[in-house]
């Protein structure tokens, strides 16, 4: 068997059009078993359109998309039986209690009733909501609801978990709680496809990242590799740079972004950027820090506001 046959997701020349708008424009990618793949991109980049095709919610316009080696066009029911999805909206069932949300959802997968009860309680324990099992979901906090959405997505013991902005709108405590649970799932071998706007989330959870914009893939790679190849190792930001700074940057050929009132200089390992800046050029306000994924993201997708 070739590697391609073992991919959890294998998308080739995937296209999604809404009338004249091309939301996903000839995208190819794969997800290997046990891997966490992150899709990053500004609003409207095509992330959600892409993952909606993966779970058979949105029909593909052209290209080929296989999940578990099955064609999404024909085998979507079998595929959905083995995936768990957390959509962007908190679409828990407000007419049902916490426990009923899991039990009723299990019925959609044809999971027998006697298996459901154990599994649902197990999952409530996993997300630390077992003492809220008979409460209405509307009484839960945002973080609890998000955890319950995750538990609901796990009710069918999926091999692939699809998360569309899982921690948007959560406070730091709730985010870390969710991350810890996702990491536990990863240790147990689950594969994850995730979209996020948070670079720290992507760096922490994802083995590999795809940065998208305008429906196309810009770059793909491991978080550390992307940082290293696109913005180097460390960064100096100087507010209101004077001529001496500009001359220094130009003569040494440092990669930089000149904004309205700020210059961002990207340095390689061992280039002495920090030392020179620190001794000679650091004016009233300068920041020295390590290069991050956010630098990569902003360099590649630009700094203008979207939508």
């Amino acid at each position, binding site marked *: 068997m070739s590697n391609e046959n073992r991919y959890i997701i294998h998308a080739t020349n995937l296209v999604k059009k809404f009338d004249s708008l091309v939301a996903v424009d000839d995208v190819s990618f794969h997800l290997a078993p046990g891997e966490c793949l992150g899709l990053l991109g500004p609003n409207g980049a095509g992330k959600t359109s892409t993952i909606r095709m993966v779970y058979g919610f949105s029909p593909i316009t052209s290209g080929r998309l296989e999940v578990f080696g099955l064609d999404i066009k024909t085998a979507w029911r079998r595929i959905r039986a083995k995936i768990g999805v957390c959509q962007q909206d908190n679409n828990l069932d407000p007419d049902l209690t916490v426990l009923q949300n899991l039990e009723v959802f299990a019925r959609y*997968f044809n999971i027998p009733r006697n298996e459901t009860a154990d599994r649902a309680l197990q999952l409530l324990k996993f997300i630390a909501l077992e003492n809220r099992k008979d409460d209405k979901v509307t009484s839960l906090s945002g973080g609890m609801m998000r955890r319950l959405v995750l538990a609901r997505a796990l009710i069918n013991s999926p091999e692939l978990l699809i998360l569309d902005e899982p921690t948007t709108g959560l406070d730091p405590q709730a985010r870390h709680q969710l991350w810890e649970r996702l990491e536990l799932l990863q240790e147990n071998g689950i594969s994850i496809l995730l979209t996020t706007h948070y670079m720290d989330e992507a760096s922490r959870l994802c083995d590999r990242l795809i940065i998208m914009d305008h429906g196309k893939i810009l770059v793909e790679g491991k978080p550390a590799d992307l940082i290293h190849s696109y913005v180097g190792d460390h960064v100096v930001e100087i507010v209101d740079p004077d001529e001496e700074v500009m001359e220094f940057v130009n003569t040494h050929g440092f990669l930089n972004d000149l904004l309205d009132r700020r210059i961002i200089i990207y340095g390689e390992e061992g280039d002495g950027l920090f030392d020179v800046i620190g001794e000679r050029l650091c004016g009233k306000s300068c920041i020295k820090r390590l290069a991050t994924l956010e630098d990569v993201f902003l360099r590649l997708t630009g700094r203008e506001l979207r939508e």
Partner: protein
Amino acid sequence: MRGNPGIGNLSWRFIRVWNRNMVVYRKIWFVNFLVPLLEPVLYIAAFGIGLGALIGRVNYHGAPVSYVVFIAPALVAITIMYNSFFENTYASFVRMYYQKTFDAMMTTPLSLEDIIAGEIFWGATKSVIAAATVLAVLSCFRLVEYPMGLLVLPLSFLGGLAFGTVGMIFTGLTPSIDMYNLPIFLFITPMFLFSGTFFPLSALPGWAQKFALALPLTHLVNLCRAFCLGEPAADLIWSVIYIAVMFILLFPVALIVMRRRLIS
């Protein structure tokens, strides 16, 4: 998915959607029962006793019957129409649009067609429960002939499917929940008044009688009245066929408009 839409995507799994609605219904079963339990009592009091005293007797198939006997079966027919129509308009819209229940279901092995079928069959189930409740109330006033009156129950399921399907088509088309006023004003209210419900169709001019025969509720009322009074006639089979054909023809339309609305 687009390659094989419509009926082809329908599976018996639709029963899971039906089950979800049943779980919710049972949580507030008392309130759910109260309306079909009390509403016919109010109608019987107002129309049967109040108005009936003024009207006296009404001709039904050439024989005079009391006004309350005349309208009682119409109350069952209206209950059937209302329960499924309102379930598959307002209630389905809330689940679809505000609660995003359908979106969550579509991450599972349920197809959109399963979901819509489950909703429509649930609407019909509500019609059956409500019709049975009304029938029980009317029986207390000795307004139902048995065993013939029991035929109302399977009829209420068929009628519920037909009117629920119409409601679901409006749900597929309506831009907002407020816009349901329009089909209710143009479709439901005229039927409520002019389908041989509160006065015999023979009171209408000839052209209006013909028009009334085109209304589905007229056929449902005719059937309910025949079953409740225990006087079935052979030509009533055409009313059954009318309602069945209405459901069979409109059901695929409901699936198509909902697919257009929700899948992109």
